[in-house]
């Protein structure tokens, strides 16, 4: 089974600063997808960014970018110019494509607090 580890239960950053959330995963697969999801108090999981394992280029979505190190099985999320609305739980997730379907394996999450 694939496992996803987020070693930082809680983090805090000041508005406009940059913060990096860590994620490592364990798999023997070569082709897979990685995701970061955000879960604000409204409970809805919101897709932040997606990375395909066969692509060496790191994904970027506006203020959000990842550092994908396939050999090290590391997938960190960098949030630049942090905003108060970024306060939320952040989950790293691994998805392996299979013939029978797909499922996301989530880490335990990192609670991010952005302060004024």
């Amino acid at each position, binding site marked *: 089974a694939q496992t996803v580890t987020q070693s930082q239960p809680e983090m805090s950053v000041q508005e406009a600063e940059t913060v990096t959330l860590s994620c490592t995963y364990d798999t023997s697969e070569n082709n897979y997808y990685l995701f970061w*999801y955000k879960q604000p108090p409204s409970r809805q999981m919101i*897709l932040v960014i997606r990375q395909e394992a066969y692509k060496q280029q790191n994904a970027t979505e506006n203020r959000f970018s990842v550092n994908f190190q396939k050999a090290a099985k590391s997938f960190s999320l960098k949030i630049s110019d942090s905003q108060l609305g970024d306060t939320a739980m952040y*989950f790293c997730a691994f998805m392996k494509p299979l013939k*029978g379907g*797909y*499922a996301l394996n989530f880490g335990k999450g990192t609670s991010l607090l952005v302060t004024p």
Partner: protein
Amino acid sequence: DAGVTQSPTHLIKTRGQQVTLRCSPKSGHDTVSWYQQALGQGPQFIFQYYEEEERQRGNFPDRFSGHQFPNYSSELNVNALLLGDSALYLCASSYGAGGYGYTFGSGTRLTVV
């Protein structure tokens, strides 16, 4: 364009009872997955439905069952509720495999007393 809709938003049940949760996927999506999120934890995969069949299942007992209807909506049923079934139940939809990521609903908060 409506996203994923789940009902009810909150539910309180007694141990031993049965519960049905409902999900309408995002327009254009044909695959529905269900996740259980215990307090302070990441979501755990329960099962996935495609073309009205269970395509993949996580490590959950047979007390958890589901159904997908021709309009792609889905139900999650839990029998013989245990206190440990108290959690947020999330529905997620996608078109096909979901490699581009799922769209999640806001969940149903189930409390078993």
